[in-house]
């Protein structure tokens, strides 16, 4: 992690995070698209098993490309991705709910299992379990268009969970939702992650969302996309609404914002979290 400035290390939560086994390591990864746009340049990044990692940065910094590389949808132009042990099972949540409008909620959540050849009857228990986890038990027969934006996103999360993946990749999943729904889904996601003990890689451009949810925040810069700073959130993993009122939260927000401003090539404002 030579290129990344570790802004702070040590502390309770940070220490336990550092002890986690490595899930994947990006070593000098470049990604150049066919249209010659450089999405990532020399990215070094370590993802640890069981952590909640947030990738934060302006648009065009290659956050989403990191997720596509992890999920195997695309491969690096240069450099390599090393896996801690075997390549794990992934669940993916897009910015849009990305549901099949012609299928009811059950069939949408069943999809990953269906593609793996699991019959409807055999999948039933797991689909219902996944729906219960996101608070949508009893909605199996509804069609996507009958649901609100937040509920559609819950279906999308249930679909990602149904294969019981070790890693959940989330690409700005709550960016299109209203503030109230987003806060509620943030809490539910935090709870889910701690109960499932899954690794979450969460792409966002919200400083506050990052700090509230993540164990570790990697700040990325654009043109070319690269990691420029790493911030460890010094707080116990499962946070509550009250966390937003603490000095730790305010302080981490301030530092994260400053790092983000530096990443965007601007002078960091001196008073951010007032």
């Amino acid at each position, binding site marked *: 992690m030579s290129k990344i400035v570790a802004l702070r290390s040590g502390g309770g939560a940070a220490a336990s995070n550092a002890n986690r086994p490595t899930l994947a390591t990006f070593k000098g990864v470049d990604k150049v698209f066919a249209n010659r746009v450089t999405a990532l340049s020399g990215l070094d990044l370590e993802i640890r098993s069981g952590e909640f990692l947030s990738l934060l940065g302006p648009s065009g910094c290659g956050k989403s490309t990191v997720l*596509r590389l992890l*999920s*195997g*949808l695309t491969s690096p132009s240069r450099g390599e991705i090393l896996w801690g042990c075997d390549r794990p099972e*992934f669940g*993916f949540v*897009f910015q*849009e709910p*990305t549901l*099949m*409008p*012609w*299928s009811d909620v059950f069939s949408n959540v069943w*999809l*990953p299992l*269906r*593609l*793996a050849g699991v019959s409807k009857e055999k999948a039933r228990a797991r689909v219902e379990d996944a729906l219960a986890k996101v608070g949508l038990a009893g909605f199996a027969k509804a*069609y*996507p*268009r009958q649901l609100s934006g937040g509920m559609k996103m819950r279906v999308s999360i249930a679909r990602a969970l149904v*294969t019981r993946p070790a890693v959940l990749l989330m690409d700005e999943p709550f960016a299109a939702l209203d503030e109230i729904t987003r806060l509620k889904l943030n809490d539910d996601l935090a709870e889910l992650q701690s109960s499932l003990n899954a690794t979450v890689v969460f792409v966002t451009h919200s400083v506050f969302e990052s700090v509230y949810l993540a164990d570790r925040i990697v700040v990325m810069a654009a043109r070319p996309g690269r990691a420029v700073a790493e911030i460890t959130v010094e707080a116990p993993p499962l946070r509550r609404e009250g966390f937003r009122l603490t000095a730790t939260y305010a302080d981490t927000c301030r530092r994260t914002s400053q790092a983000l401003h530096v990443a965007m090539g601007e002078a960091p404002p001196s008073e951010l979290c007032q």
Partner: protein
Amino acid sequence: MNRDDFIGYAVPALTLGMGLVVWEAVVRFFDIPPYLLPAPSIIISTLFTDWPTLSSSLWVTLSITLKALLAAVIGSVTLAVIFAQSRLVERAFYPFAVAMQVTPIVAIAPLLLIYLSPTVAVLVCAFLVAFFPLLANTTLGLSSADHNLVDLFQMYRSTRFQQFMLLRLPSALPYFLAGLRISGGLALIGAIVAEIAAGSAGQGSGLAYRIVESGFRLNIPRMFAALLLISVAGITIHVLLTAFSHWLLHEWHDSERASET
């Protein structure tokens, strides 16, 4: 039936009724002879007296229209599916499909009549007219699946067949149905135009031939009656295809959202 529905049906019906009354009144007042402009009452009575001839012609035209539409559905969906498998095949054949579409059918009909029997030529003409909107729409539909869903299918290592059956076909359905509604009307138009070009008489003659024949004989009321039957057939095809489309899409597609109460 609520108030809006009532107005929705009553207003056009009233307009139609008033139009017919004015038409009837004008014809009677100016004493216009039926071979120039028949009154609505005479057209209706002609429809009844000539029903044996007209109904058999209606059946001929309708059966050609439906056969052509069915053939167009099978042909266009098959071709669109082949196009969806290979960009190269699409490039190779699509220009010819466009050329078929832009060449007026009346211009092709005389040529077809050289090679084919009149009935088959008329069927081929109606097929050609109905084919293209279905092909264009289904091809577009098959390639317009949500790209995030395509990614998702790839991520879960779906087979090409799974992706086709579970994603591309359902994505294409609304496009196909929109094409079907256009083609339903066009198949009838194609059949009528080709019948006029063919000008075939006798037992197997359709409604278009009845119109041409009535023109020669100055039997204008029968001409109007045949025209009325063609309109009613066209409207019926449209209404049935719209109902079919609604039946397939009402549970999920946004275009059907307005009809939800």
